[in-house]
């Protein structure tokens, strides 16, 4: 296979993916291809099926349809192969025992069966938590805990990074640091898929936006194109204005009135 063929081949392919919880279909007919190097942000109102879709991709929830990774159906991958290929950060991830931060990050090496000290250290440095290494993880602030869990995710060194609301409990400085970090991971050739509620951050850092409503993809476009045609207004039932930051960047502002 030529280099071009490998690069252009989708890293992740979803074909008519449907996920039901009980009798209720949460994700319906999702079809999309994702390539290495993309930073995809999934947007949508609460209950749109964003987290459910991420769980199906991570192999945590059963689904109908087809999910392929590097051309191989997910069903053909065993749990160990899948866990090395996909790193998953759940929404509001908890830590149940006061285990030292370093040990939590080292859990990211579990799929590889090692405790590679250099990788763990690098992940902690990237997330600015080296000074917390010996702290019990349950005694951290919400923001620190999020960064610890993110470092655990990075320590997997997976080709596909899936993060469900990774900046939900962070202050603005750490929000931007985490978004930069995810962008960097995509630039290194990984596929990053994140669910975000902050449309401004999504617009600024993502390379592709996927809008989900009632379990279906209603838009799949670049951040620039998604501003057109009032798509976001329709998605969230709000009016959005595009504001210029004065440094050549655009920002989205939601109006108070509906």
């Amino acid at each position, binding site marked *: 296979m030529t280099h071009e063929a490998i690069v252009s081949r989708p890293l992740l392919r979803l074909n008519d993916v449907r996920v039901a919880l009980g009798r209720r279909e949460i994700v319906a007919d999702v079809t999309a291809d994702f390539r290495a190097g993309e930073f995809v942000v999934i947007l949508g109102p609460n209950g749109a099926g964003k987290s459910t879709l991420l769980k199906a991709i991570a192999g945590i929830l059963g689904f109908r349809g087809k999910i392929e990774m590097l051309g191989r159906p997910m069903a053909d991958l065993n749990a160990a192969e899948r866990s090395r290929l996909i790193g998953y950060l*759940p929404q509001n991830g908890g830590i149940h025992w006061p285990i030292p931060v370093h040990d939590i990050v080292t859990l990211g090496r579990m799929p590889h069966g090692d405790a590679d000290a250099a990788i763990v250290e690098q992940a902690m440095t990237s997330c600015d938590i080296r000074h917390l290494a010996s702290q019990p993880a349950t005694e951290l602030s919400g923001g620190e805990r999020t960064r610890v869990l993110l470092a655990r995710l990075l320590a997997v060194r997976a080709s596909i990074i899936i993060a469900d609301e990774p900046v939900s409990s962070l202050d603005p400085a750490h929000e931007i640091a985490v978004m930069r970090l995810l962008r960097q991971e995509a630039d290194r050739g990984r596929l990053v898929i994140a669910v975000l509620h902050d449309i401004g951050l999504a617009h600024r850092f993502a390379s592709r936006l996927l809008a989900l409503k009632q379990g279906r993809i209603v838009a799949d476009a670049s951040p620039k194109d998604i501003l057109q045609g009032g798509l976001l207004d329709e998605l969230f039932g709000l009016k959005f204005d595009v504001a210029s930051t004065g440094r050549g960047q655009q920002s989205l502002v939601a109006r108070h009135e509906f």
Partner: protein
Amino acid sequence: MTIQAASAVHVRTSHVRVLNLGLASLLLIAALGSVMVGAAPLSIHDVWEGVWRHSGVSGIIFWDIRFPRLILSVAIGGFLGLSGAALQGLLQNPLAEAAVFGAPQTAAVGAVAVLYLGVSDALSFWLPLAAIGGALLSSVALYGLVGRQAGSTRFILAGLALGSLSGALVALIISLSPNPFAMTEILFWLMGSIEDRSMRHVLLALPFVVVASLVLLRLGGGYRALTLGDDTAASLGVDVGRLRLSTIVAVSVGCGACVAVSGTIGFIGLMAPHLVRPFVANDPKRALLSSGLTGALMLTCADLLVRLIPSTSEIRIGVVTALLGAPFFLYVMLSDRSLYRSEGP
């Protein structure tokens, strides 16, 4: 890795080794005490002689009375500690122990039914078999009720229901017991004891306890991953449903075997993991072996204590573990509040 971080991990690993070696050494000392102390005290010389001679007073006391009792206290205490640590790791809950799944209670129903029917004297192997059968039935019922994919809360609720039902059945059997002797026998058995147990009891319980312990010791990595919740553990390659099934079956089998020969002994499964957790950096995997050794040490010491306390008849070991365990557990709980501040979603 920074030198400090690397050395911290190294120190922690070596701390755990030192802890386990220390516990094993204390257990050896307690074991020696256990074979020496009793109604007929033996000196170290007598014990040594007894080990190599199966005849004579010291040989009979060692092989027929003290040694089976020692093996049972180590095996049962060890399994209670280990299973407590495993269940706390599985459920990410510091209050979990075998009773949460109803295993000891259902084992007790089987055993009490045999005592009620009065066949335990004539056919003494019936009692342990009934207890193991009862515990196995509880794991089958638990799985039948909640299914493989159910979350921890459903397991706990179903386990509590099974435990309550079993408690009610035991009470029913006691209230229907034909004569006061049968009732007394049942009540005394329920209090827990390893007095007057023979090598036959050891051979009946030990294979189940050893196999169940080996299974639980192999599951430590899964419990460690569950620290981050079911979803993250699954994304790290852990089959959470299988981990639950393996744990519940192993705990039921081991617990059934323990209850079969000793009756119900409380608090060790709860206390042993709490005692070791600060020394293993709260790691659910590292806590397993250390909790097992601590449980073995606790029950062996409790068994020594019941022989040393002067009384007309020997005090039941289950009573001692509960009497000492409950206040001590409250002390540990109140002095280490950080454990009860877990950050769940």
